[in-house]
């Protein structure tokens, strides 16, 4: 991973927000507020505390779903990568899940699990899990055989081969999958709130759209993006501290 200099980050932020501001001032659409209007709305949502209440609601299915997908997804992925039979049995499910339009499944999920938090968590999981499983299993299968041989020659048990060789060696790709999975989980959480029952941030979005309070709507969407980026940064930190030497490419 290359550390991006702060000035560059600020510059690209300025570029994006600047063009947002200008595009909206140019009057593309009456429902497209300027950047500054949206930030003002975000400020109002923040001091009224509304946004915190909303996130308390949204984060419940999101965090639960992402955690479940991470642990079960990585677990299944490792297993698929290690066992050909299990691969044959399970991989097609996740490949289909990844390519299918999952939003279309939401009515089925509601029928099965109702309109509560279970359904929302479930939606987060079906969005996040496939890419985590597929990345993990691919990475596990690609473990350099010379490293496995090395560990065996120094008397490792099967368990140690998995824990000390296969997982660390697969970790860059596993973490890439986790990043994609977490992003998909965010989409899933908002999707669930828009399609199942409006709660949390999804409620702010749909309510402000109904009342034509577009700055608030954009403020809510903006806050999700910020949160997702923060989340991904935390993930990157975790990865760096766990597997420092994996940073700069692979050498034998």
């Amino acid at each position, binding site marked *: 991973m290359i550390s991006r200099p702060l000035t560059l980050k600020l510059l690209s932020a300025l570029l994006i927000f600047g063009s947002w501001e200008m595009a909206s001032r140019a009057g593309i659409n009456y429902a497209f507020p300027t950047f500054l209007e949206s930030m003002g709305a975000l400020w109002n949502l923040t001091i009224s505390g509304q946004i915190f209440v909303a996130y308390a609601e949204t984060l419940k299915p999101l965090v639960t779903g992402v955690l479940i997908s991470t642990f079960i997804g990585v677990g299944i992925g490792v297993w698929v990568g290690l066992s050909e039979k299990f691969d044959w049995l399970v991989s097609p499910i996740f490949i289909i899940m990844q390519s299918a339009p999952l939003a279309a499944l939401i009515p089925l999920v509601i029928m099965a699990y109702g309109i509560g938090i279970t359904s929302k968590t479930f939606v987060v999981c079906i969005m996040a899990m496939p890419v985590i499983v597929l990345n993990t299993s691919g990475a596990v299968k690609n473990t*350099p055989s*010379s*490293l496995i*041989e*090395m*560990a*065996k*020659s*120094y*008397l*490792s048990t099967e368990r*140690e081969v998995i824990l*000390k*060789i296969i997982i*660390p*060696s697969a*970790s860059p790709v596993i973490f890439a999958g986790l990043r994609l999975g977490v992003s998909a989980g965010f989409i899933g959480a908002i999707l669930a709130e828009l399609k199942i029952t409006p709660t949390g941030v999804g409620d702010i979005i749909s309510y402000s759209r109904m009342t034509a309070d577009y700055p608030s709507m954009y403020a809510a969407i903006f806050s999700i993006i910020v949160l997702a980026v923060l989340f991904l940064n935390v993930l990157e930190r975790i990865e760096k501290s766990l*597997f*420092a*030497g*994996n*940073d*700069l*490419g*692979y*050498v*034998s």
Partner: protein
Amino acid sequence: MSDNVNAVSVKGIYKNYGDVEALRDMSLDFPKGQLTSLLGPSGCGKTTLLKIIAGLLQPNQGEVYVNGQIVSEPGPDRAFVFQDFALMPWASVLRNVAFGLELRKVAKSEREDIARKYIKEVGLDGFENSYPHELSGGMRQRVGLARALSVDSPVLLMDEPFSAVDEQTRRKFQEDLLQLVKEESKTFIFVTHSIEEAVYVSDQVAILLPRPSRVSEIIKPSSFKNKDVDSIRKDSEYLDTVEKIWKSLRSYVE
């Protein structure tokens, strides 16, 4: 069994990779406390033989004896230096070198002390906390060497362990290796492409035929072994032996 004389012996080994016949009826003894070199054309099956002895590959037929016992799995009595180094890129030099001991459940501080000693010995002092991608090829190779030495196995299987180090370091390592063979009662099985190196460090040199590989000749350079390291390279028997091996290998090249 001649288990007092030979640390390792292989008997009637056959190994095929699909249609490729790598080893055919290979038998060879590796006397205890001695260094045996395997010399042969590229692709003749030296790595294959070493991995079979290590228990990493199963032969199609034939047995491997270590101290008179048939073995088919890796054991604490053998340590491997890999041709492609096989270092863990996510682990520091220190952890890589200590990895064999880590798998043997040696306590952390103890195994790191041992690892530090061997890191120093291979001349990587000060690189304990570097990662493999920060090292040159020759330095990586020395990490692999230190890892094998630190587990203190009686048999060392070395697959071209000096191929990537510079000529000065190589000569120093060859001298160190001679010293090590003299001092410790370890058995070395040493793969190399260099005739000079083989003759210089070995008690016996096994010359292998091209695939399917068998032993064509065993040469035991002896008279110059107890001379001091500097004069060996000028010794007439040393030079004659190099010449003789070159002649018998040349017939395959031509």
